[in-house]
């Protein structure tokens, strides 16, 4: 789950890391009031879940409250990379002496959080790591034990930072590492972490992402502190009607799991496929043999006839779908006969001939003989494990292309 900058700032603040006195505003009037309260030059920043807002004109400076209101009005209407802003952040224009970077990410190989620090802040950390590797400090922290300040200190000192700067930055990086762990973040970044002309340190911008699996146990932070609504899930893409319908069918029945996605898919061959790895393999196999998938899907965990039928119907009703391919890697839990019944039922209910509509049925495993009997009855072409996932996908592609030609 991604956070807006104003929320990320709040998270940082809650962890005891100093921030400037910013205001989150949704109208030009609020922005004017916030600027007046701050007194002096301010910066107005678009609150969008996408990068490149500076380039797009989503960040502007103002010397007076009226100017702040005018900028806010423009920015609030400005779409950036397809995103409309949630609001604007009004922030005092800081007198910055030096910019630093402080971040924490997962190191999947070490299986531990990794602290990152650089004295070259304000720019992309990967760029710094490539061009000035000696300006990036790294340090792993334990998952089990309290995170001591000295580990943050070592990480910062590795970049050559010393003196009061080292002593001011140390608790900030240590707190960032603690908040990363306590709040189940997958990314916690302060960039820039600014040293102001008076020597104090503040987080000028922050970027946070929380692991989706942990959203349920972080309710206190999400609902109480940040006031984020339950249905505000911040997916990367808006769900299509197909995706929403499949999700509704899945939720209506606890038996088995079905998933469907069609973002980026526009073909004529509907895929009723599974399970996780099988779906990935089959989608590639269809595309690599010249096929055009209409969607991606996953079936698993032994769904009911109604669920298999529901998924197949949704796929069949997508624009441009001519045939469906029903294919899975060998199943041990999901029953072949139940999926067979489901997809045949879907065809019949839509007034289609299963033998014509189902390009191929390739699900080997539990209850396959019973399944194959049903498929025989309706003249559906099927195969067992002696036909590979690649070959089954190829047959489906050949059929749908033959039908088109």
């Amino acid at each position, binding site marked *: 789950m991604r956070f807006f900058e104003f929320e990320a700032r709040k998270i940082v603040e809650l962890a005891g890391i100093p921030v400037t006195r910013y205001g989150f505003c949704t109208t030009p009037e609020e922005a004017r009031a916030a600027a007046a309260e701050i007194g002096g030059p301010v910066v107005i920043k678009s609150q969008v879940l996408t990068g490149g807002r500076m380039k797009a004109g989503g960040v502007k400076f103002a010397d007076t409250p009226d100017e702040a209101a005018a900028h806010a009005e423009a920015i609030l209407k400005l779409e950036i990379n397809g995103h409309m802003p949630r609001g604007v952040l009004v922030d005092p224009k800081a007198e910055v002496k030096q910019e630093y970077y402080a971040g924490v990410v997962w190191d999947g190989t070490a299986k531990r959080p990794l602290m990152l620090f650089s004295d070259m802040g304000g720019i992309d950390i990967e760029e710094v790591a490539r061009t000035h590797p000696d300006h990036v400090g790294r340090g792993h922290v334990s998952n089990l034990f309290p995170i001591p300040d000295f580990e943050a200190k070592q990480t910062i000192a590795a970049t050559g930072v010393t003196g009061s700067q080292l002593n001011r930055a140390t608790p900030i990086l240590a707190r960032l590492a603690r908040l990363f762990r306590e709040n189940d973040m997958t990314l916690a970044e302060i960039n820039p972490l600014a040293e102001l002309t008076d020597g104090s340190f503040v987080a000028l911008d922050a970027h946070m992402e929380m692991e989706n699996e942990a959203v349920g146990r972080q309710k206190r932070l999400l609902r109480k502190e940040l006031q984020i609504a339950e249905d505000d899930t911040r997916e990367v893409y808006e769900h299509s009607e197909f995706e929403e319908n499949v999700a509704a069918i899945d939720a209506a029945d606890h038996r088995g799991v079905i998933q469907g996605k069609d973002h980026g898919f526009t073909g004529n061959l509907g895929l009723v496929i599974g399970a996780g790895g099988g779906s*990935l393999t089959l989608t590639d196999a269809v595309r690599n043999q010249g096929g055009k998938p209409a969607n991606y899907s996953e079936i698993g965990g032994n769904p009911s006839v109604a669920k298999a039928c529901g998924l197949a119907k949704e796929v069949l009703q997508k624009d441009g779908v001519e045939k469906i391919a029903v294919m899975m890697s060998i199943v041990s839990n999901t029953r072949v006969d139940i999926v067979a019944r489901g997809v045949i039922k879907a065809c019949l209910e839509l007034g289609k001939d299963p033998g014509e509509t189902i390009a191929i049925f390739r699900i080997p495993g539990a209850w396959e003989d019973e399944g194959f009997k049903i498929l025989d009855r309706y003249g559906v072409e099927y195969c067992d494990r002696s036909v590979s996932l690649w070959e089954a996908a190829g047959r489906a592609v050949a059929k749908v292309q033959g039908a088109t030609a």
Partner: protein
Amino acid sequence: MSILLSKGTTFIVQGITGREAVNLTRECLDYGSQIVGGVTPGRKGREVHGVPVFDTVAQAVEHHGGPIDGSVVTVPPAFTKDAVFEAILNGIKLVVVVTERIPRGDVAQMVELADREGARIIGPNCLGLIVPEVCKMGGIGGPAKDAAKAYAPGPVGVMSRSGGMTTEISSSLTQAGLGVSTAVSIGGDAIIGSTYAELMPFFEADKQTKAIVIYTEPGGRMEAQLAEWVKDNDSRLPIVAFMAGKFMDDEEMKGMSFGHAGTIVEGKEDTATEKIARLEAAGIRVVERIDQIPTVIKEKLGVLA
């Protein structure tokens, strides 16, 4: 020979009274595995297919009268970390975590504790492991007769991020007359207990294993880690890899997760294309099509013979 399991391996099932766990227990017992107890808090005194149920792992160990080798953990995500800690701190050295949707922080804690205590975790979000005709630990391969059909003993070690594809690939090796030494469903999450590179030394030490097949997906650094391991270690084992999810390299799929929680392209290095290049640079043969695996393995074994 095999890795991690043998004929004498004893294990318990934590969460044994759950629906999925009851099936898994039946399947493993039918396959000949030695399940010496089950744990579900508050259900002490019951039996699941003749296996005694206890409230705690300590009770199961006491009842067994000595150390227990392993545990299959199949409890809801909110309770998994505690269950794994309980297993490890009661002396269990091999923990298969079936549960999915466990936050990464919890998994990392389990793994760190396992490292400190000399225990090994397989998973989470996996189906376990199997040594054909010897022992099945987890739902891998399904009911005993289905598992027997897909898994015959042979020279190929299999490691897969997908549980279903572990069986699909092993079945194709069995059909081709090759067979499997040990197959491990390593799990589909971003952080898992045992990666390819971490299991390679076990296969390396196993005389029965003559070649390795891995099933891989976009997301994560596990393949890069394997490539580094292969470069640093003069392995006797040829490795054949299959990469699924190439379609995820398309620009419009960016940031989307498919198949498994760990299968999400977050950076340039974890795309399918980049991973294939790394594996190939380390001398690992990456096949384009899933059905090429048995043929290429035969070639590799022929060259060695």
